[in-house]
């Protein structure tokens, strides 16, 4: 931190001027850097490093053998499959909700707009028992679905319901500001040129909201893959059938298999890093796109 502060950054070389590493006119740069890096290091990076290192003495083949054993593999299939499906449902429903909330005025719109954030605000355990009750065979939604022969609670489908619930706000909240910002002129031009409303949506609106919608999709996916609290109350948690990956980690820990837990945890962390990278790329794409002259 402060020991490196005297190093000049490469690439910005000016004769006789040594810029500090943290460069700016205002005071407090070093203190802020110290607090930020110290806190992130102690609270976030140290634990993350512990997971990676605890899985380490294994070589790649050994790591994969533990990470890809059948029960874990089945949990990946369930977790990633259901997360992708849930994020896809959120993508469609989220764009629809964002469009309706931004473009149409109807009674109760502001109230619904506020409620969109509920899955963020509601503790996951509460969401879990509520969804479990709602979709149970005698629940408000479970009973009619049971008549149709669809079982949700205590079945793999319960995972999908819970993950869709917690991911919904991501797409709505990323798409909404972009829909507000789209220049009305663009749509007017399309209309003047004879486009139908559907063509305008398809060729003008959709490309504009695409980066934001995909960012929302990816955020929902990232959240869904790691989700634990809301899922375990809705599904049966049966190994090979309805056991999500975070639950595998917990059972490994309960068996005192720290290495096994760390290997599965490290696999999930690698996915977290990859998805952060994708989110950054998508956001950069969105900024470039909205930065274009409209």
């Amino acid at each position, binding site marked *: 931190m402060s020991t490196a502060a005297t190093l000049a950054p490469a690439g910005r070389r000016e004769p006789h001027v040594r810029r500090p590493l943290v460069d700016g006119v205002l005071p407090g740069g070093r203190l802020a850097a110290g607090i930020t890096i110290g806190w992130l290091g102690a609270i976030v990076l140290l634990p993350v490093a512990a997971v990676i290192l605890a899985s380490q003495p294994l070589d790649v083949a050994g790591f994969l053998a533990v990470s890809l054993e059948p029960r874990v593999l089945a949990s990946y299939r369930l977790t990633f499959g259901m997360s992708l499906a849930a994020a896809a449902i959120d993508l469609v429903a989220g764009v629809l909700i964002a469009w*309706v909330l931004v473009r149409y005025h109807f009674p109760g719109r502001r109230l619904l707009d506020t*409620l969109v954030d509920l*899955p963020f605000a509601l503790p996951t355990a509460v969401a879990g028992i509520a969804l479990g009750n709602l979709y149970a065979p005698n629940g408000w939604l479970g009973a009619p679905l049971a008549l149709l022969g669809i079982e949700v609670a205590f079945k793999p489908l319960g995972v999908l319901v819970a993950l869709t619930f917690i991911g919904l706000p991501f797409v709505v909240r990323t798409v909404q500001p972009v829909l507000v910002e789209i220049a*009305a002129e663009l749509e007017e031009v399309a209309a003047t040129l004879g486009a139908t409303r559907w063509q305008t949506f398809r060729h003008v609106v959709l490309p504009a909201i695409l980066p934001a919608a995909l960012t929302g999709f990816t955020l929902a996916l990232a959240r869904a893959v790691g989700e634990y*609290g809301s899922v375990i109350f809705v599904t049966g948690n049966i190994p090979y059938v309805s056991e999500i990956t975070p639950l595998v980690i917990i059972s490994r*820990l309960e068996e005192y298999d720290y290495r096994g837990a760390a290997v599965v945890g490290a696999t999930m962390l690698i996915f977290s890093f990859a998805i952060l990278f994708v989110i950054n790329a998508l956001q950069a794409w969105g900024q470039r796109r909205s930065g274009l002259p409209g």
Partner: protein
Amino acid sequence: MSAAGWQGQRRPQTALALRDPPWVRALLIVLAVTVLLSFLVLPLAVVLMEALRPGLDAYAAALADDNTHHALLITLVAALISVPLNLVFGIAAAWLVTRFRFPGKSLLITLIDLPFSVSPVVVGLALVLLYGAHGWFGAWLVANGVKVVFALPGIVLATIFVTVPFVARELIPLMQAQGREEEEAALVLGANGWQVLRHVTLPNIRIGLLYGVILCNARAMGEFGAVSVVSGHIRGQTVTLPLHVEMLYQEYQTAAAFAVASMLALLALATLLAQHALEALRRPQPPEETSP
């Protein structure tokens, strides 16, 4: 969700050419409202209904229970420690990122977001690997008689980890948009760093700050996965409100579980209302929607 993104909310009456046919409108509104009601409102309604079903007396008894009180206490303590610490971190991080140039800035911003994409269970696992009996610091902690995992410090550490980004995430776009001219002017006029922070920066960001604190607090009080791994579920000692809900539910004390859950649901509703009120404060434009 950025403050600047909402500036354009108010737009003139939609041109005729941009109006969707009435049946499309009606269909889309019905679809969206149905999704929101069945997906968001029903779970909330279920919590309140189930909590009150055995009657008010049973509800009051569930909330008056000693274990519930203790769980509430643990939850409040965890939030009261982690929120202020992450508030200080958020201000420092936003000050650093928006007021200075330095190499690796975008990497730093990504790292601030990292806790959002790490599974809460992996957070708990990490803390066990660090501070558990067999962890890196386990031997030292045991030798010195400090208990982290299966004790309050572990719960606090887990809560801090998952709430690290909230305040910083709100402040960074806000302070970026505001620029540093006012602070530089204050500096030129002879203010020192703390005076700039107290009299210029903090008043400018107070709404965003409050917004971040409210979101941070909601997550801190509601965190389940990470806390669950490090808690050990010791009744009256290491059980937070969400864990208390889980334990009651698994013991088939469904009504009591929903009664405690209703407290957390009310916290969520209060959070949403506060968000709503702050959103309105954020854009001081004339109120939108003059006609239905």
